[in-house]
């Protein structure tokens, strides 16, 4: 298991406003079925951490355990070092945003946002003040007297966010909050959420199955599969250095070329021999041994297409092939190329209007820097 806590390209500056959340060996089982299986995660104060994974990976259950709505069967969850397993959900002081907003239909926007403050017994003037500020933050000041039925999906979600942050929690938990919105609205809301988090500095734990969203928003992504965290790191780290094939495929398009390790010059550098005998150089994060099966991982946008081969270069891999299909995707061009050895390779090039375009059937050479690829053992 990869060490989930450290990464080399951290971008989150620690602040005093957020709290640290630590999960140690957290498990939830329904009978024999382990929905969450020994999860370890160290979320730092003020960090925006996403739990990313396919449905059924246990991410929502994990969030619900942090929130206190699901019981922990094994392990510990700590808030700033204190075990919160015994604290009921209404005493944990976390802001919670659901996918279906859960805006109280019988209260108007103002009363919805004021709800947590009234529950805490705040004086009236303070409530009015704080609610106004929260509504200003989500740009809904003019809707204070409206009811949820009169609001659009995006507006309702903003009310939910305002309500979740109005009492200045140190942690906000979000369960796929943008799942019900259409694409453009989702981008808009993502920017807003990120802005609010930067301004207020609280820790955010964000559940999503959308990898673009996770990469856009997070300081750190924890990828979950079958109840476990399979890798955690900054968006850049998990995208460029996946721990295994599953993660590589999950976070965008990937080429996964199977072969056998022919030679290992040092534990982290080696040569992969393909089925047709071709040799490719690559680096690896895990120690290499000659003779074992491995997969070469390279992103489609890191491969260059050229008409002819160039001189051999120890830092560059080359593979010749023929273009099968060319798809026009708006801002990118996607090529499917069949290598000489019969392997399908996907290449993406920016549609910049300058580079030559290769029609289907053309013979091409695929080129990439060795450092751009990775050997995956799993």
């Amino acid at each position, binding site marked *: 298991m990869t060490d989930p806590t450290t990464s080399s390209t951290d971008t989150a500056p620690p602040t005093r406003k957020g709290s640290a959340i630590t999960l140690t060996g957290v498990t939830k089982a329904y009978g024999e079925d382990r929905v969450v299986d020994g999860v370890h995660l160290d979320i730092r104060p003020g960090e925006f951490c996403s739990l990313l994974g396919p449905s059924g990976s246990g991410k929502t259950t994990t969030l619900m355990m942090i929130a206190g709505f699901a019981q922990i069967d094994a392990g510990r969850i700590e808030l700033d070092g204190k075990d919160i397993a015994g604290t009921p959900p*209404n005493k*944990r002081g*976390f802001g*919670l945003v659901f996918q279906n907003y*859960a805006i*109280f239909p*019988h209260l*108007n926007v103002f009363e919805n946002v004021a709800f947590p403050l009234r*529950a805490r017994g705040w004086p009236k003037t303070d409530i009015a003040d704080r609610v106004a500020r929260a509504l200003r933050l989500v740009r809904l000041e003019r809707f204070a007297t409206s009811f949820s*039925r009169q609001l659009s999906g995006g507006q309702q979600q903003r009310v939910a966010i305002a309500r979740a942050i109005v009492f200045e929690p140190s942690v906000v938990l979000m369960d796929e909050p943008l799942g019900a919105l259409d694409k453009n609205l989702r981008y808009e809301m993502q920017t807003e959420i990120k802005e609010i988090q930067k301004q207020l500095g609280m820790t955010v734990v964000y559940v999503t199955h959308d990898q673009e969203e996770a990469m856009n928003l997070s300081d750190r992504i924890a990828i979950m599969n079958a109840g476990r965290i399979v890798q955690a790191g900054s968006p850049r780290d998990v995208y460029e250095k996946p721990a295994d094939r599953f993660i590589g495929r999950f976070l965008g398009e990937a080429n996964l070329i199977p072969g056998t390790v022919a030679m290992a010059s040092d534990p982290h550098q080696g040569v992969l021999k393909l089925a047709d005998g071709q040799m490719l150089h690559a680096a690896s994060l895990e120690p290499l041994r000659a003779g074992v099966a491995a997969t070469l991982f390279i992103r489609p946008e890191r491969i260059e297409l050229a008409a002819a081969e160039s001189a051999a270069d120890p830092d560059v891999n080359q593979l010749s092939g023929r273009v099968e299909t060319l798809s026009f995707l708006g801002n990118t061009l996607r090529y499917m190329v069949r290598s000489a050895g019969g392997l399908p390779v996907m290449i993406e090039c920016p549609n910049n209007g300058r580079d030559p375009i290769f029609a289907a059937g053309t013979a091409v050479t695929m080129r990439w820097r060795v450092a751009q690829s990775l050997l995956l053992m799993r």
Partner: protein
Amino acid sequence: MRPGPPRLLTAYVGTMSVLLLLPIVIVVILAFSGQSYLKFPPDSLSLRWFIAFFRDEQWRQSLYLSIAIATIASALSTLFGFLAAYAFVRSTFRGKAVLLSLLLMPMIVPTVITSIALYFFSTRFDLIGNIVWIGCCHAVIALPVVVLILLSTLQGIDHSFERAALSLGASRLRVFTHVVVPLAAPGLVSATLFAFLVSFDELLIAMFLTNVRDQTLAVRIWNSLHLEVEPTIAAVSAFLIAVTGLFLLADWLIRRRLRAAPWR
């Protein structure tokens, strides 16, 4: 445009609908009759039997007694039934089907058996004529209706509202009073009204558990029917029909108003 039902069927259903309402309509018309004997159609119309009903000390006492008992029954069964329905819908515990069947028992056991058992029990503990006790027994009879109505109501309320309220720091009590109750309001109104009706109309338990001096409206009608079929009974019956109609109307109106609220 879908072809409607065959004409023969419509004619039959129309006739049956009239037949279903006919007896009730006739009683109401008879209540306004001016004669002191039953004749249909009445030769003259007057309010004399209504006046007789409301002027008669005994009929009035029966009315007050029925209202008192029904109020107690309605309050107890709605409150307890609401809590029970909430437990069924929100809690996880095994044996729900068994417990629900238990709560529905008063509806299943023939009322005559329940009433004689209660009579037997009540004489031992000197509870005959005790209004609160009768209200309690009626509450038990009304409980199944209340629970069924409120189960349906609560199942329609999304669980995430309560979770949101909890996460926002509300105490469980506050979640209940400020979120669950307002959202369950239409069902609560129906349950209260129908529980009241169940108790107001109930005969057997009231018959056994009241003493000769204090009879509920239903019991007094029953006794009167055995002695003679006097027109006052028609007026009392018309009054009961009006009460039923009023309650159905109130239920429909209040539900409509709650549903049309800006937040629904």
